[in-house]
């Protein structure tokens, strides 16, 4: 028996799910900006020293009639380099269903984990649901969306959303966030996309090293201009 038998604590995971629209309309500059911002975010997460909550990242894309889990929920490592391409439709509901399954599954997100963060980025309305002229309450009836607010863990999860351009219905993003204190970020241009990733990175980094990650607040939205924030 030596002291190296001393039991090292398993850290608790801090799961982060990123749901990313890769439909045809994201093609070009938008998806390229997302690629750069994503790389910067992953690099920042790698540099966090002595985290209390160990960041686990899951990358889910939706586009071209399908949902892809690009990175299953896992810690960040050297191989995490992604170049995403955009094409086809916007099956947002399928992405919601995927994240619902993963968070409900104890083997994916263990009961020891801190509450997850789900980040949604889209530049258009879902092709599997039509939100036009619907109120938030009506949108909430959509099963794929209502399910991600059901269950204690999903209900507590922090949800952040950015709509790119004017084609995306703000109410669907509001219904996704379902928290009047967290604004929807509206991106006018690529600059906002970068700022949004910066905001998400900072907020998650602060949570990761906080002495109680479940109580840590989001960082201030001071980097955004007034018209980029919509409550």
């Amino acid at each position: 028996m030596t002291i190296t038998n001393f039991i090292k604590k398993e850290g608790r995971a801090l799961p982060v799910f990123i749901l990313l629209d890769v439909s045809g309309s994201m093609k070009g500059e938008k998806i390229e900006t997302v690629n750069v911002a994503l790389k910067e975010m992953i690099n920042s997460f790698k540099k966090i020293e002595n985290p209390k909550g160990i960041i686990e990242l899951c990358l889910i894309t939706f586009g071209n009639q399908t949902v892809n889990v690009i990175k299953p929920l896992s810690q960040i490592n050297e191989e995490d380099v992604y170049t995403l391409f955009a094409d086809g439709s916007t099956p947002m509901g399928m992405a919601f269903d995927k994240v619902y399954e993963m968070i409900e599954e104890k083997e994916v997100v263990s009961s020891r984990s801190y509450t997850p963060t789900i980040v949604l980025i889209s530049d258009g309305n879902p092709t599997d649901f039509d939100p036009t002229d619907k109120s938030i309450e009506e949108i909430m009836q959509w099963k794929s969306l209502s399910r991600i607010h059901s269950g204690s863990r999903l209900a507590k999860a922090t949800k952040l959303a950015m709509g790119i351009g004017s084609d995306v219905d703000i109410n669907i993003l509001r219904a996704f966030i379902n928290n009047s204190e967290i604004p929807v970020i509206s991106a006018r241009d690529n600059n906002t996309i970068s700022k949004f990733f910066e905001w998400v990175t900072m907020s998650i980094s602060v949570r990761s090293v906080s002495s109680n990650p479940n109580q840590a607040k989001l960082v201030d939205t001071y980097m955004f201009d007034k018209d980029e924030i919509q409550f």
Partner: protein
Amino acid sequence: MVTEGDKVLINGKQYTLGARLGGGLEGNIFNVEGFPNHVIKIINDNRMSRMQLNEIYKHLKWLKNLAAQKKIISQYMTVPKALLDDRLGYIMLKAGDHDSLKNYITPPGEPEDFDEWYKADYTFKKRYQIIANMFYALREIHLAGLVFTDLSPNNVMVHKTQNQIVFIDTDNTRRRTDSYLGVLGTPGYMAPEIYRKPDTIFAETNNIDPKILSNCGRITVESDIFSAAIIAFQLLTLQHPFIGDEIEKGTPEDEEGALEIKTDYIFKPDTTNTSSYGLTTKFEEITTPEIRDLFERTFIKGRDYPALRPTDEEFCEAFQNALDRIVECQSCGFSRLYNLNDGNKCINCEENIGTKVSMLIYNYFKDMKADEAINSFGDYPQYDISIDNLRDADGKLPPNYVEVSRIVLEPGDKNSKYLYLHHFEKCTDRSKKFARVTLMDTEDSVKVQILNNVYPNPALIEKKTRKLTPLNKGKIFPIDNYGVFFDTIKFGKGHIQIFCKFIKE
């Protein structure tokens, strides 16, 4: 947002911000171009009301003036030297040669790196020195009439070689008399009473000020001591005292409850919240009975009753005394505390550490009994001090002498022990080094060197004949035949003599 290269004004003079050193939601710390020993903290005043801004400004100004008056505070705390003219922020001295205490309680990720980490950089002995220094520094702050308020490993810096403590992030420091009814601090380190709210309904119906009701929601000296005790416990065991295995394996909500100190102390008798993590299984080997008692008083009864917690001084003294009993395993290099009554197996390789030579220092009350001596100090009226309090380590009740300190010696120059005032008299005051004691390699003789003649006429005393030989600047002598004697000091009606003997057991 403030960034590197921005200009700020202090007393009308312009300074340029250097690289950003750190920060968080509260604010950011920057180097100052051309002033390598200083840093500037800019407080994040976004979304603050005018009243909040005013309050912080007033508070910083008070802290600055206070530190200018009481020099001792700036020795243990980073305080504003001057406030900025054009922003909410201040300039202060940089804690340059310091390391965050957080590094001491965060073991390396790979278990095989643990040995090197614990034996080379973040040693057992250093941990004891840090704890003694931390309580000493905290005591000075409390004696100055202040409460630190947000004590956590992130706010304690340790000098890399000398282990002195500097508390940083002092923005929340308050006067002890201030009533402060906010939840302020770091989860896991805040005393449980801070979360509790005073019974305002009771106060209203009885027409009394809720602030005087109890310690509920109030930050006090006792709540600082609670936070410091948690830090001390973590430094020793690498585990939080309220997080047992059931919490460690449980949900984040369970952990949250433990961080709000709603669980049992992991060493509370009969608790289910026991721990097998960190060094908790070695707790007996790495602490003294006095230290275990202090933790129990803080974390069991003192958890709910702040007044029952020990004082800074008690902690400081217990850790200072324990420092004299640290021994290192010859075969693997791990340290433990030398146990005077039981076996002394290494905590790592289980090798028997063997019998050590100890130096015992007594106060001898000549021409009077010990209780009379205590009562004669400074001509105070006769306090009822029971002689029971003066039992020595063997549990015996000597009529007229008392053990002040016990120092375990290990052979060789590098293991020399220095004697300070607290070794000769019961006190926690800091002093110069009085003497140096070295056990020779043969382990049957010691070298005593007098560095500072505070007590007059030190002499060797021959055990059989009681003959005195002046020690002058120092001597080497066999421990079986001699003790060391310091001349009498007049105290009231009698005399106090100090003598040391050496034992091997």
